[in-house]
């Protein structure tokens, strides 16, 4: 096992101890995040020259997968943090202020959150109502952010807004706001079926007199297309794959227990387990192929911005989110009432409730509609061993 996997396992052990309480109380997985900081995993993606480890997306995906088997909420917080850090790393290298921020992330293990969702706009990432109001060297910013996951616990929030008050709703920039520079007034509370520990409350975010240097120089359109889309779909998928793997592990343990109790007979659930294991393998293949294609495309803006690449990522998200729900439900079918009941070694209530968020986090129907549009122009003729 490599060093990152070992560190991730140590964090997962802490996360597992508190996962039920995090879920029951809908509270932030603080212990797991402290463990992530102790293992210095929050800064793993930051380039070496800024004190980080230049970790690849695959390595980060491995951590997401490992954590998700212990606590879905902790894994999702880590994934969302790394998605924001990916934007900083991919698009902040030309800006002195953002390079300084990268150093600070590794030194102080800062936790990043995201404020893209907005009242009146909803989850449409590529449109904003709020705008950056620049006055000389500083700007003011105010956003009715209907969701900022773990916003109350974040050290840095990356928020989208229109470039200036007269800009089109899609002419957006991404601003980095530090904890002491903004006020957050809670406007809604995250009391949900699952993923309760992400604490995705709504906030009225206000920031005044923030240096303009904190605005990322690249247009948000480019940031969304080149780093956010890929890192979101691939890291979320790794979390969902972890939840599904955990559920199937419980189903396997259950079937093996049955087999030991009645030697000479194959337990009835074994066939269902074989089917589910087959699905899990297909799921893993989909994620791994996508991670490899993403890493091979690094530095190739044309490939990262191509229609074929966007279709591939959309397909990863819809496929993995649906399959993850399916596998956890299959696992519950195999385990039966021991899985339905809380507090048994085979309980699957929490993972089932958590994974049901997967097809809804950017609704699969919205993604399929986007793919349908892209397919109107994509040409065929791909090869088996290339894109």
């Amino acid at each position, binding site marked *: 096992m490599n060093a990152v996997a070992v560190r991730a396992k140590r964090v997962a052990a802490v996360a597992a101890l508190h996962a039920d309480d995090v879920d029951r109380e809908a509270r932030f997985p603080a212990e797991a995040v402290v463990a992530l900081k102790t293992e210095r995993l929050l800064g793993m993606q930051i380039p070496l020259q800024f004190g980080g480890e230049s970790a690849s997306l695959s390595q980060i995906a491995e951590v997401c997968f490992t954590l998700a088997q212990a606590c879905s909420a902790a894994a999702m917080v880590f994934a969302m943090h790394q998605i924001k850090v990916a934007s900083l790393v991919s698009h902040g290298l030309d800006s002195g202020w953002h390079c300084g921020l990268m150093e600070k992330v590794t030194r102080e293990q800062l936790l990043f959150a995201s404020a893209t969702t907005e009242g009146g706009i909803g989850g449409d990432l*590529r449109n904003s109502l709020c705008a950056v109001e620049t006055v000389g060297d500083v700007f003011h910013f105010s956003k009715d952010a209907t969701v900022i996951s773990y916003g109350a616990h974040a050290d840095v929030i990356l928020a989208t807004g229109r470039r200036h008050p007269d800009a*089109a*709703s*899609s*002419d957006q920039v991404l601003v980095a706001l530090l904890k002491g520079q903004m006020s957050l007034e809670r406007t809604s509370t995250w009391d949900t079926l699952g993923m309760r520990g992400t604490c995705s409350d709504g906030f009225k975010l206000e920031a005044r007199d923030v240096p303009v240097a904190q605005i990322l120089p690249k*247009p948000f*359109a*480019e940031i969304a*297309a080149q780093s956010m889309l890929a890192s979101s779909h691939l890291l979320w998928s790794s979390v969902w794959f972890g939840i599904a793997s955990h559920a199937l592990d419980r189903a396997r343990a259950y079937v093996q227990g049955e087999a030991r109790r009645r030697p000479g007979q194959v337990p009835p659930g074994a066939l269902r387990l074989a089917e589910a294991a087959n699905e899990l393998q297909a799921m893993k293949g989909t994620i791994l192929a996508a991670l490899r294609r993403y890493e091979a495309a690094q530095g190739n*803006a*044309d*490939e990262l*911005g*191509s*229609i*074929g690449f*966007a279709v591939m990522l959309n397909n990863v998200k819809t496929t993995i989110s649906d399959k993850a729900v399916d596998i956890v439900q299959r696992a519950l079918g195999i385990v039966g009432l021991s899985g339905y009941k809380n507090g048994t070694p085979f309980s699957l209530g929490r993972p089932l409730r958590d994974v049901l968020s997967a097809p809804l986090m950017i609704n699969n129907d919205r993604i399929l509609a*986007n793919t349908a*549009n*892209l397919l*109107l*122009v*994509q*040409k065929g*003729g791909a090869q088996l061993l290339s894109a």
Partner: protein
Amino acid sequence: MVVPDDIRETLKSVAALSETTDSLGEDDNLFDKGLDSFGSVQLMLALEERYNIEFPDNLLNRRSFSTIRIIVETVSKLTVSAAA
């Protein structure tokens, strides 16, 4: 011969840009002016129909549709190769 005004004319068929088309400079980034992935697909379809061309997969990326100047260049190349 493909000229910028022809492209502007085609851009009017894209809902997100129809209002601002006449004021667009040749080097303005269309994605900053409101073009999104849905609009860029509609734009490709309109250009393919108007010029009787097909964009190959390697040109189906954001850069090919980012400015009027780049669209003129791309469409010109494709019309020449279609005629050849």
